[in-house]
């Protein structure tokens, strides 16, 4: 499976932003904690999709690739600039409609980024730990541990998963 030989058309790019923009923004906001950085991460992910996406086997493959690129971009942004390690409570208030959603996001954004990502991939994107391990480039056992730590820190009830 190699790099696509033709760049996506304008319509395909428009479709990518329409189809994946929200998903990528949610992931990036979860990792970065503020709208401005999250939008930058989405923009750079779409650009990388334009430049370097391989031929995808199916929609799920495309989704997993986009998630991996976006999470790597967010990780690089966090490492490159310490000031990015801040959470905008104002942005959370603006983006979440319900008070309970705001409370949950505040708690999620208090986790270290790598545990937030594990929680996002499992509880929001629906990936099993073996799939998460492949996306993150870590062992399945390490993926389970990150999820376990995230669960413990958020005190997620296991009974109703």
């Amino acid at each position, binding site marked *: 499976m190699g790099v696509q030989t033709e*760049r*996506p058309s*304008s319509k395909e*790019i*428009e479709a*990518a*932003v*329409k189809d994946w*923009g*929200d998903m990528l*923004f*949610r992931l990036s*906001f979860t990792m970065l904690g503020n*709208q401005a950085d999250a*939008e930058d991460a*989405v*923009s*750079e992910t*779409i*650009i990388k999709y*334009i*430049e370097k996406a391989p031929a995808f086997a199916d929609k799920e493959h495309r989704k997993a690739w986009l998630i991996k690129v976006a999470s790597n971009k967010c990780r*690089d942004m966090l*490492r*490159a600039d*310490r000031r990015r*390690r801040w959470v905008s409570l104002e942005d959370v208030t603006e*983006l*979440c*409609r*319900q008070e*309970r*959603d*705001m409370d*949950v*996001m505040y*708690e*999620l954004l208090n986790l*270290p980024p*790598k545990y937030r990502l594990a*929680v*996002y991939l499992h*509880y*929001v994107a629906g990936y099993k730990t073996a799939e998460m391990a492949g996306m993150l*480039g*870590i*062992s*399945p*056992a*390490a993926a*389970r*541990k*990150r999820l376990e*730590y995230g669960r413990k820190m*958020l*005190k*997620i*009830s296991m009974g*109703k*998963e």
Partner: protein
Amino acid sequence: MEAYEIKNAVESIKLSEEAKKRILDASLACAANNEQEENPRRKRINLRRTVAAAIAAVMLLSITAYAANGEMGSWNAKETGGKFRELPTAEYCLSELGYVPLMTESFENGYRFTGGGIDDKSFTDKSGGVIEEYRSLSLDYEKDGDRLSLSADKFHTALDMSGDKSRVIGGVKVMYDSYVNKVVPVGYELTAEDIAARDSGELVFSYGAEYPEIVHVQSVFWEMDGIKYFMTQLDGALTEKELFTMAGELIGQGA
């Protein structure tokens, strides 16, 4: 918190139409101009050895440490130039460290040696005065991407080594400890939040990383023939039982 609440909260977040337009415009411009200035990716600096050394070095600071001239301020670690890809020989250890610690190429559970080095460590008092300096051996092991660090330290400063749990293996008392560690750069100033977390016991702090990072640390440690051994994992996959077993394999070599 219920699991479904996380999904609901995150999925309530949407990209505004203005933001979608900005992103679309940027993407189309990129495609049209075929110009993109990619931000140089910060090379992933493998801090695992340094971080592990710094963390292992502070582990025992949770236990009161006394030196000849009073209570210790900090236990510091930094890598030296001495690195190797093969297990060092006894002669090399004697010349670099002055002692030959227990070592192994691999453990029975499949963790294999991947590299190592010599670290310069020191104990300093609360005024920053050096109490003792010494060199330590650090070995890295890996299996399926999961990493373990083994260090062997020999020093004179008296330490009271104790952990959450202990077992006697081959006549040697082996301790186990686990906690959440915030590793920060040297010179980092603790925030009010940091201080509160430290004082409540929620976080242990250690110095030696390039940027602040939170890791779950677990370690087994013991002393044998005057050498103190620490097997440490950062966000690792091994269980407490597996760590005790691996310690036992090393101890068995020295029996």
